């Protein structure tokens, strides 16, 4: 049996999974530390794409537009955390969810005002169009770049959280914010820096994505559903779990497209339902 179509489909799935992961990672990090379900996470990824479009128009350089978009989306995230979320940390979590929903709507409409209703795109750099032979199929470098970036983001986040002083403070805040505060950890700064990081990763994801698939108003609403499902399956707030769950969703979506295209759309909900029935706390969740 020729396995190359399946392997090719798996790679396509890994590409898709990496995009989900670049949303889900921010979602997981922010939920883990702040206990805020950030409904605006996918909208920030889309905003990253729009930012990259503008930075590309100014600089003419795809590679420079990526860090610029990441930083600017991170700053927008930071600003909305400081101004809109911080005042309501003490009230019920529902209000914070509603606030992030409002942020998503505001960003969505501001994007429409700024960049219009038409989808925007950055041309794919020629170097990323070069194709390489893998398993007898040709694959362009861009797809490999996205998959590698996804993995690199996971490794970098794991190292940052497990091996640095800042990471130690984050973990302390993650576990018990009251005790962390009694140990003179400024949890407010931790919250803001985590929010910045989570948003910047999604901003970078958007800047990478926009070279292949365009961003348009409302795209975030479409992507956030998959990203939520990923974090729910993973167990809210578990980074390794979220990475693995992204891969499970992305690859199985892709394989089902090949073998059972008719239930392709149903699939992610099916996986979620089954995993919630078997392990309500998520595959990697604690408790």
């Amino acid at each position, binding site marked *: 049996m020729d396995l190359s179509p399946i392997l090719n489909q798996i790679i396509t799935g890994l590409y898709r999974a990496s995009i989900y992961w670049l949303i889900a990672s921010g979602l997981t990090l922010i939920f883990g530390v702040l206990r805020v379900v950030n409904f605006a996470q996918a909208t920030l990824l889309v905003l990253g794409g729009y930012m990259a479009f503008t930075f590309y128009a100014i600089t003419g350089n795809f590679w420079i537009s990526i860090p610029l978009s990441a930083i600017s989306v991170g700053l927008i995230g930071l600003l909305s955390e400081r101004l809109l979320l911080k005042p309501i940390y003490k009230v019920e979590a529902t209000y914070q969810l509603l606030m992030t929903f409002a942020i998503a709507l505001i960003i969505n409409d501001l994007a429409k005002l700024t960049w219009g209703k038409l989808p925007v795109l950055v041309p794919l750099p020629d170097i990323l169009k070069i194709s390489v032979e893998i398993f007898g199929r040709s694959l362009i470098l861009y797809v490999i770049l996205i998959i590698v970036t996804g993995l690199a983001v996971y490794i970098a986040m794991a190292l940052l959280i497990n091996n640095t002083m800042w990471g130690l403070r984050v973990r302390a805040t993650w576990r018990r914010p009251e005790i962390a505060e009694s140990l003179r950890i400024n949890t407010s700064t931790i919250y803001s820096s985590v929010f910045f990081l989570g948003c910047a990763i999604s901003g970078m994801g958007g800047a990478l994505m926009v070279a*292949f698939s365009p961003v348009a108003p409302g795209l975030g609403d479409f992507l956030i559903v998959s990203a939520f499902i990923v974090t729910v399956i993973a167990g809210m707030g578990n980074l390794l779990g979220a990475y693995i769950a992204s891969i499970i969703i992305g690859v199985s979506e*892709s394989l089902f497209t090949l073998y059972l295209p008719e239930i392709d759309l149903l699939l992610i909900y099916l996986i979620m339902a089954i995993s919630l029935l078997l392990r309500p706390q998520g595959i990697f969740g604690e408790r």
Partner: protein
Amino acid sequence: MTNEGRRSALKLIGAGIVGLAIGAAGGLTLAPEKVREITVTQTGPGGATVTVTETKTIREAPAARLPKDTIKIGLLLPKTGVWAPYAKYGEEAAIMAVEEINDTGGILGAKVQLIVRDELADVVKQARELVEAEKVDFITGVISSGNAMRLGPIMPELNRLFILAGAATHRATEELVYKQGIKHIFRLNVPVYYEGILTAWIAKDLPVKRWAGINPDYEYGRVSWDLFKTYLKKLRPDVEFVAEQWFPSPGTTDFSKYLSAVDAAGAEGLFTTAWADEAAGLHRQAAELGYYKKFKAAINPMGYTAPVFYALGRGYPQLVNGMWVGARYIWFYPPTSINKRFVDAYVKRWGRVPAYNSEYAYTSIYVIKAAIEKAGSLDLDALIEALEGMVIMSPVGVRWIRPEDHQAVHESIIGRTSDEVINIGGEIRMLTDIKAVPPLFYYRSPPDWKVPMIDR
């Protein structure tokens, strides 16, 4: 029928169409009334008689006075969401038609007023408001097939004519008009016969045996793909359909998994009814991922609408056996003076070439004008009688409104992307190998909905 026989049949049909065109040219045309030179004798100062040549617009005296001095037309289009930029092409052309008519004396002396509403904000509610609050006399537009099927059945209750211009489901005319007898609906555009049947004639002659489909997952995509499969199999029994993929629409921006799946199935040819931004996205990604080097040919019936060719510019891909793309109306065809006048006016006014839906919106206003002038009143039965069987010259060419199902029959073209790139308000990759297929080859017709040149 032998090939020879078919060719002579083609000639006959061609002659018939030319005949219709000549007949129509003498009757109704969609140009504003002619500006004619006349000589006026005036009495100058001091009693001298001066002969002055003046240019004046000559109008015939209205044959009948209408009971009102403003005719209101309600235009329903997507004003929000991803289809809004697409629909803009229609609105622009409708505005142009209304201005032209008002500048040349209106309809039987009455001014025309256009009221545009968002068909995505509950089309039934919008139509009711147009009729009850705005007191419109006609409803036109509607791009979504789903909306056309929702609005159609309530037209008798609203007691207005619905000049459908855009939505492509064959059910609007085959079921609502013909089977259910809702005489209030008239459709100006070719339905999915274009997407599914005309394309089968193209596919039949390509060196491709293994076809795959990547289509939007709703009525339009499913019906088109079914028709394509059915009719291609009839025209060429040795083809295989190796994969069918459905993408959520609107909303899909990443087509990679569908492309790799049809490639895995060993497809040689790709059929897609993706349209607007989704068509542009699909073609760009298929080219970037290298699939358009593997596939021999691709067919995208609505791939040559203005938003798509402007979005792709010179990057519109070419395939070894052709990237076959079209639209129900393409601005450069036919090379008639009426079409040239329409395109020139549109480019001058809006800075870009018209899309197919521009032609429909524009013609719909003129069809309303023609109906009123022929009927001499706003009486519904008289208007229906005036429109049934009407032949109209329009930018797309001759339109004959088939009396049985109120479907306008007109010619449409398809071609493959060429090396030539021009610039009118943006880069446009031109087409070559233009196939102008007479309607008899792909229109299904009542009473049994067979295609005369295929299902015999």
